[in-house]
């Protein structure tokens, strides 16, 4: 652990600890099931860790708190009425290309399309849509080097606002063609990470965030769920597991010691998993933390593509089949 970051001691805690977030998340479970909300609740039900979430929100500096609240005003446009006349889509590949172009023009760093699957929904939730368009918007790397400070937290909130605007623009365009589309920006109703992985935005890193070729983990996600016919993207293998198996940067730098060096069973899948109970306390103390994203070697601007090439070449050499 480096001493660059605040120490993991806390002046707040639970007198009676709630059920472990790792249990809620299904750590150690061998059978598949959908996720349960544990933090950043949608308001649909009171969560076991809601007191900590309330503390997190209400002890934020006003500049961040107000931004978050005002972002909600913008999010009212995430859904809306459809055009009366539906534009036929004879060529789904052409439509995908057109929508990706609109998203990129609006500022998206990466765009991927995937069929909508149940693993992107929490238990008890429904979203009757055919596909998901996932957008990744990079954060300013230099600003994010100040992780654990108000400055970096403000950049994160602003990135969520900007990526929300992109998905809202995209959803509005699709609705203007007469097809259902709902934007999910800073939403607690949708799990963006499984969708992003399926849409080929990147792969899951050991720090629990998606690592994409170009921006590493230094981006925020938002999605549009829609019924418009689209050509789907597929998952990618850019060598993230090769890096994470050998690299210990985030594991060492995480002051809360929340990142494991091995993949674990979570709801029936073996994958990288971050210890919720350790992570969340530090997350709350440090305005949303973000250390693991910032220290990841893949997040350094310009580094990703060559790093991916090197890792894949090494693997091919090691295992020519």
């Amino acid at each position, binding site marked *: 652990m480096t001493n660059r970051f605040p120490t993991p001691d*806390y*002046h*707040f*805690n*639970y*007198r*009676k600890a*709630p059920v472990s977030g790792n249990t809620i998340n299904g750590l150690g479970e061998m059978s598949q099931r959908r996720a349960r909300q544990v933090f950043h609740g*949608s*308001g*649909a*039900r*009171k*969560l*076991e860790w*809601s*007191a*900590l979430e*309330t*503390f997190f*929100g*209400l*002890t*934020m500096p*006003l500049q961040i*708190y*107000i931004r978050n*609240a*005002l972002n*909600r*005003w913008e*999010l*009212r446009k*995430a*859904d*809306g*009425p*459809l055009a009366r006349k539906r534009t036929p889509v004879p060529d789904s590949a052409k439509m995908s290309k057109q929508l990706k172009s609109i998203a990129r023009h609006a500022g998206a760093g990466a765009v991927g399309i995937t069929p909508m699957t149940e693993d992107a929904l929490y238990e008890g939730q429904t979203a009757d849509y055919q596909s998901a368009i996932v957008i990744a918007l990079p954060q300013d790397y230099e600003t994010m080097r100040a992780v654990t400070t108000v400055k970096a937290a403000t950049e994160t909130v602003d990135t969520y606002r900007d990526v929300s605007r992109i998905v809202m623009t995209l959803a509005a365009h699709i609705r203007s063609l007469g097809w259902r589309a*709902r934007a*999910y920006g800073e*939403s*607690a*109703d949708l799990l963006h990470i499984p969708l992003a992985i399926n849409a080929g935005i990147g792969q899951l890193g050991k720090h629990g965030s998606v690592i994409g070729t170009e921006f590493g983990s230094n981006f925020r996600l938002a999605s549009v769920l829609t019924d418009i016919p689209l050509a789907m993207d597929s998952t990618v293998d850019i060598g993230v597991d090769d890096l994470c198996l050998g690299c210990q940067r985030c594991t060492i730098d995480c002051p809360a010691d929340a990142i494991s060096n091995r993949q674990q069973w979570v709801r029936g899948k073996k994958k990288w998993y971050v210890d919720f109970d350790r992570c969340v306390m530090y997350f709350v103390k440090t305005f949303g933390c973000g250390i693991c994203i910032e220290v990841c070697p893949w997040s350094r601007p310009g580094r990703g593509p060559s790093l991916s090439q090197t890792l894949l070449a090494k693997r091919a050499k090691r295992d020519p089949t």
Partner: protein
Amino acid sequence: MSSFETRFYCTERAIWPRIQRNLSLVVWIAKVILAWFTQGRRLRKAGRHALREKRVLYLDDLIDSGKDD
């Protein structure tokens, strides 16, 4: 309780439901901001005291906790 999406997303074309939605969202945001100045003020003050006195602030004592379902 219902989620933000359920409460404030409106797909109706008519203007009145959207005005109603906007009004209820303004009230919701105003309540959220007010909470920072009221409950938030108490929490931040208690947090500062705990930090200064090097003791732990127990969230269960100050914030309603637990499941409702």
